[in-house]
């Protein structure tokens, strides 16, 4: 055998390996998939008469289990909850038709008639009780969130939920994606088995799921709100926003979610594409580390809060795809939004610093107190792409008022571990549709999301009052008082409410969206022209 024959043999072996691997596409389907799809290529053209929508998602890394991965099952139109958030982010009935708090710890939930699961079974109180019991059993987080003692059936269309403590916002909590309703008889008996193929109630039902690759759903023709406008929806996953953008530009998909602001500009310049903007549901802000020596003085905290040029942030950092935020809640969510008003005023900020004893003694542009320069550590994480540039912009705004700062990009969980003065962060504040939920987590001493360790007895007292107030007007008033009290102390520094950006092709007929709440995306109305 000559060396050339050997070399050709080597090349042939490589090509053989490639061919073998090529044939392995079928084996790339996970064992968890219930069925293989007609084609594993999202670009393959469907039959002409079939109305198929192709959507680029960010992640498809776990199956759409209604109890553990409601974050995927609800937005893709597979699962629904008893209550949902409307366009104003208020809680409204969905699979439920209403609810009454009969006692501080007892809620009666009335169910909608005529709702059918994907398997054709009718939804009734027994099924809903079974589903809620499974939701509590299969995910500890749901148990902690709802704090439910037991669920009982009162009549075929009424379930009674007993909570362990007074809970005036239970319907809001039942908007949580992991309280989705599924036919309990179709859920695997073992809690270790994923329940993505359980019969749910949404306008689409799952056909196949391949982790990190694609998911296919078909119309649920017995859907309670009417026949879905599409026959099939194909989801593909691209974690990179640039890939989602290019897939949209090349026509490989019809909708790309979570465009970057820069990507939105590109889409806006393409006549065959369109940018759709969802109203903001959360905020970008900075945790104040209330244990940091520099942050002990409320005058300094206020100076920093009014040193933020929020208009410039929204226009520059977010390319206009954000709304300036002076309070915790986006516009329309609460009657007293922006109650604290941190209007941009660098001159007033300098005066506040002077009042706090900070002066530029050595003329280097940075203020000092007792010979120590005011130098701050600003930390944030890269997963929310607007946060690092937001802090860099703030760094230069701080310099303008004589405060030095260094920006550090770190892991987001470090927000709970101190080591910073301000920490750039992103949070949904409108989940559950009630302001008490976010106040409880972010302002209350020891709250789950109170990562800067803010503590104020008046705020704690007001938030405590919220847990027993059930009248909506009274709740709004108490929430406003708590919000104001927290803002007076500069519990945290709000910056902007980012909008969510969708790129769609001109073939898509989407009059029903996008919706403000992050959880809702594909409904029975979205279709193709």
């Amino acid at each position, binding site marked *: 055998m000559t060396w050339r024959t050997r070399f050709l043999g080597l090349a042939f072996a490589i090509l053989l390996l490639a061919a073998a691997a090529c044939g392995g596409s079928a084996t790339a389907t996970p064992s968890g998939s219930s069925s293989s799809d007609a084609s594993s290529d999202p670009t393959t053209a469907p039959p002409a008469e079939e109305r198929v929508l192709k959507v680029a998602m960010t992640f498809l890394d776990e199956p759409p289990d209604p109890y553990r991965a409601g974050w995927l099952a609800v937005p893709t139109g597979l699962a629904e909850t008893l209550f949902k958030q409307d366009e104003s982010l208020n809680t409204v009935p969905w699979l439920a038709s209403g609810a009454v708090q009969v006692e501080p710890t007892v809620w009666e939930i009335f169910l909608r008639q005529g709702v059918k699961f994907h398997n054709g079974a009718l939804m009734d109180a027994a099924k809903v009780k079974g589903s809620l019991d499974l939701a509590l059993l299969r995910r500890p987080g749901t148990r*902690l969130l709802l704090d439910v003692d037991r669920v009982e059936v009162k009549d075929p269309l009424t379930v009674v939920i007993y909570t362990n403590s007074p809970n005036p916002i239970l319907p809001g909590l039942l908007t949580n994606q992991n309280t989705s309703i599924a036919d309990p008889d179709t859920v695997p008996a073992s809690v270790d088995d994923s329940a993505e193929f359980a019969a749910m109630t949404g306008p689409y039902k799952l056909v196949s799921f391949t982790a990190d690759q694609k998911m296919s759903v078909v119309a649920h023709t017995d859907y309670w709100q009417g026949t879905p406008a599409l026959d099939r929806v194909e989801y593909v996953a691209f974690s990179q926003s640039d890939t989602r953008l290019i897939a949209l530009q090349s026509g490989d998909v019809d909708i790309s979610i979570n465009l970057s602001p820069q990507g939105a500009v590109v889409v806006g310049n393409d006549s065959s594409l369109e940018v759709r903007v969802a109203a903001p549901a959360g905020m970008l802000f900075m945790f104040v580390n209330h244990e940091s020596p520099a942050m002990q003085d409320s005058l300094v905290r206020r100076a920093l809060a009014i040193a933020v040029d929020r208009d410039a942030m929204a226009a520059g950092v977010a390319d206009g795809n954000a709304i300036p935020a002076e309070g915790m809640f986006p516009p329309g969510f609460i009657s007293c939004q922006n109650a604290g008003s941190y209007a941009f005023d660098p001159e007033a900020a300098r005066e506040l610093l002077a009042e706090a004893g900070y002066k530029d003694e050595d003329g280097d542009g940075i203020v000092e107190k007792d010979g120590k320069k005011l130098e701050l550590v600003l930390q944030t994480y890269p997963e929310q792409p607007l946060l690092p540039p937001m802090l860099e912009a703030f760094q230069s705004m701080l310099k303008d008022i004589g405060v030095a700062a260094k920006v550090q990009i770190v892991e987001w*969980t470090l927000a709970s571990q101190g080591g910073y003065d301000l920490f750039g962060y992103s949070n949904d504040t409108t989940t559950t549709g009630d302001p008490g939920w976010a106040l409880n987590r972010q302002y209350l001493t020891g709250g789950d999301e109170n990562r800067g360790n803010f503590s104020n007895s008046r705020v704690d007292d007001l938030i405590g009052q919220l847990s027993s107030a059930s009248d909506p007007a009274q709740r709004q008033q108490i929430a406003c008082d708590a919000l104001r009290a927290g803002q007076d102390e500069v519990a945290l520094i709000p910056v902007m409410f980012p909008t969510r950006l969708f790129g769609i092709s001109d073939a898509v007929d989407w009059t029903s969206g996008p919706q403000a709440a992050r959880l809702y995306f594909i409904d029975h109305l979205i279709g193709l022209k």
Partner: protein
Amino acid sequence: MTLPLLLLGISIISFMLLNFAPGDAAEITLMRQNGGVAPSPQEVVELRQELGLNDPLPIRYGRWVSNAVRGDLGESYRSGDSIANELLRRLPATLLLAATALALAVAAGIPLGVLAAVNRGTWLDTSCRLLALVGAAVPSYVMAPVLMLFFAVKLGWLPAVGYGSPKNLLLPALALSFGTMAQLMRLTRASVLDVLGQDYIRTARAKGLSERSVVWGHGLKSALLPVVTVLGTSTGFLLGGAVIIESIFGWPGVGQFVIQGISQRDYPVVQGFVLYMAVAFLLINLAVDVSYRWLDPRLHFGGKFN
């Protein structure tokens, strides 16, 4: 004996580095499950306990090693799936991509390198060197969107994304192969130039052999030895580089799995991937050593030359 020791060393280092990296796997996992809402401290404590993250590092490492030697790489924190099964399931797609990229790099890089050497100083040589320069300077993650924009968006010839047909394979394989192709081209050119100046080539020419026979038949054979060495390391880098390319193209290989494992602090996934890469590198290097003997019969193991 060296192989297991190397693997042990690599696994210890990667395990330590992973666990010293900031970030709480339990908190990140729960945040994801909660749809972006931070979990309560009690939830975090419960999951840490469940995942065994509260145990001392040596105990956790010992547990991992004792399972790994039995082929059990543990379960993903996110999905609960077996890491070994997940890696095996995704491996064909990664191998397909890396093998195709390697084939493209070899098919283009070596002939172009020879042509550049034979036509030294001509426009062909200059063009090849320019191409090699671009290939060496432009990383694959930059090349990938450029290729996507040009071939998928501008020309519409190829799909930008997708998996399952040869058309889907071409762009990611091209993006991945470009750097390796440039490296092979430069090395082949230099190696062939070196060989063409040697006495036995002059003798071949003096015998009246055609230039084609001299270059492709006699010169290239000797020139390929250093190329094969580089080919071995390049194969390892192609497997590693596939991680980034897969993430950009949404290619359902090991890469997507690992990138998400890293961002979610899914330690067993990352640890399993490191072990897989270490084994791949070691086996490839072994294969390269064996191929020396195969390509050049003068070479014998034990350092003895005939």
